[in-house]
């Protein structure tokens, strides 16, 4: 019976597993191989694709744009993870309070979840169109700014360490990421037993103390998972940056994923593109490995 069951199991799992191996795992490995050969589409007919070792990596590491894109990738990921987690925590707290209209508010917060990234980017580009931006209009009416903010093209002004386009693009990524985070944190909040709060209240804890000494520790597992997932996703993010700015202006919003895509499909340098995406692969694999080890041992 066991043998029959095992054969049955392998037959059932095979189609899914083979597809994932062929179009998921193999391409990742093949990316690494591609990063170590010369694969210039313009010279493919004459040169072929000879093995060149780490030459592609040397080329990209010597490209100043790479370092910029690398730092931007990390910075974007950190901004998105930080802001989304913080806002998600606050929103979930508010949604967890009993008040009228809570259900409606919750559904509203969820909506950006289903908006395709292309559409989200398109709408925000329109909202950010300097002369016609409702944001500029309101800020001007309030007397906070004199000229229009050029959200996506201002390469000069900065707010602290962040350029204006970086802030604008981040806002869109945060906007799209909030629903998922809010849902996860809300589920975490609802699994905290109420009597812990009650006993903390009896002991005289105020709202802030309850949040800091009960909620946060109880949410630690949820938050750890979330931050890991968000960070990995943030490192590999592509769509919003690519569509809204294409990495510009002056590479201020350039990130590794966009740089890689452009190397391949505008420069036809698939080898350099693969080398850049290999950097993403290595970075994310390290984080993912820890996460998987934890998950599997919990199961």
């Amino acid at each position, binding site marked *: 019976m066991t043998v029959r069951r095992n054969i*049955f199991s392998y037959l059932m799992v095979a189609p899914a597993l083979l*597809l994932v191996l062929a*179009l998921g795992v193999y391409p990742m490995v093949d990316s690494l191989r591609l990063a170590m050969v010369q694969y210039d589409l313009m010279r493919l007919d004459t040169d072929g694709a000879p093995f060149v070792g780490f030459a592609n990596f040397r080329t990209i590491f010597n490209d100043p744009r790479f370092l910029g894109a690398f730092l931007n990738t990390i910075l974007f990921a950190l901004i998105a993870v930080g802001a989304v987690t913080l806002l998600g925590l606050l929103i979930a707290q508010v949604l967890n*309070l009993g008040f009228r209209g809570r259900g409606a508010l919750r559904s509203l917060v969820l909506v950006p979840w289903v*908006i395709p990234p292309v559409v989200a980017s*398109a709408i925000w580009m329109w909202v950010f169109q300097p002369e016609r931006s409702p944001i500029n209009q309101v800020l001007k009416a309030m007397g906070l700014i004199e000229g229009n903010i050029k959200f996506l093209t201002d390469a000069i002004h900065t707010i602290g360490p962040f350029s204006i386009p970086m802030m604008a693009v981040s806002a869109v990524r945060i906007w799209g990421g909030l629903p998922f985070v809010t849902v996860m944190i809300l589920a975490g909040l609802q699994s905290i037993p109420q009597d812990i709060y009650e006993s903390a209240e009896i002991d*005289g804890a105020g709202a802030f103390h309850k949040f800091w000494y009960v909620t946060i520790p109880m949410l630690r597992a949820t938050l750890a998972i979330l931050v890991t997932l968000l960070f990995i996703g943030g490192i590999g993010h*592509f769509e919003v940056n690519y569509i809204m700015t294409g990495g510009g202006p002056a590479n201020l919003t350039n990130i590794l994923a966009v740089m890689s*895509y452009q190397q391949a499909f505008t420069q036809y340098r698939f080898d350099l593109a693969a080398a850049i995406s290999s950097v993403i692969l290595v970075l994310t*694999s390290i984080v993912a490995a820890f996460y998987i080890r934890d998950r599997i041992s919990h199961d």
Partner: protein
Amino acid sequence: MISQSLKNAQPRGRVKLTHNSVLQIAMRWLGRIVVALFAVGIVIFVLLPFYWMAKSSFQTNTEIIAIPPTWIPQSLTLEGYQRALTMIPFVRYLTNSMVIATATTVLSALLASSAAYVIARYPFPGATAILAIFLFTQLIPPITRVFPVYFLIKDLNLINTYPGATIAYISFSLPYAVLMLSGYFRNSYPVELEDAALIDGCTLFSVFWRIVLPISLPGIIAIATFTFLGAWNDFLWASLLLYQGQMKTLQVGLRDFIGEFGSFQRANAFMAACVMSTIPALVLFSLGQKNMVQGISAGAVKG
């Protein structure tokens, strides 16, 4: 940690006992106002783009290029929608998206539930390793494998075809679907059900096909919703695998507006196209959400 919190909280407690009402009531109202302001801020942040998209889609072109912008359309018009349908082959793009996303969803649901079922129910040698492979592929961002996948589909002569994109989407949706469904199969109905059927002489496969699948349909549909949305909303893969005129999906086709028409000249048509390409996803999501809740709470057979 709690005991520490109590120490810190002590003085506050005493304050509460000595001064009372006025300060306390003021603080409580202050708290409420802060919460309300925060909630309003979030609602504006979330909704402003939607409102801006919707109102722009109903404005005339003259109104839309006016400076400063108008918040409330002076004359509602469907001009934007008419134009969106004619400026790009909208219906064709929509059909492409629909066919590919539907095929992906059905096939992926079948493959994922077969795999998830045995992983959850028959702990066979290697099951954990397989789960780890799925988890890994699920986690690693797609940009790390686009080029080899592109070459692979190209070598199969499936670029700019439905099957090429569908195979790719199925394989990308499988890890998430298998992970979610194996959790679902593990908890959604009692093992006795299978055992009874096996004793009655059912084969292993017919237990899965005739008993497990039908009971688990709500959960499978919930996961399938995510698969559909993933394929429907995708830009990255579609931009590589379906780039030729007539074969583009909606998400890639929408970029025609950015490329050819500048960012605002035809913004009403662009926004109308955005509205139309979001509606299917929104409708499905609201239906799927209900299913998700049902699927998780319905669970087992009664009695």
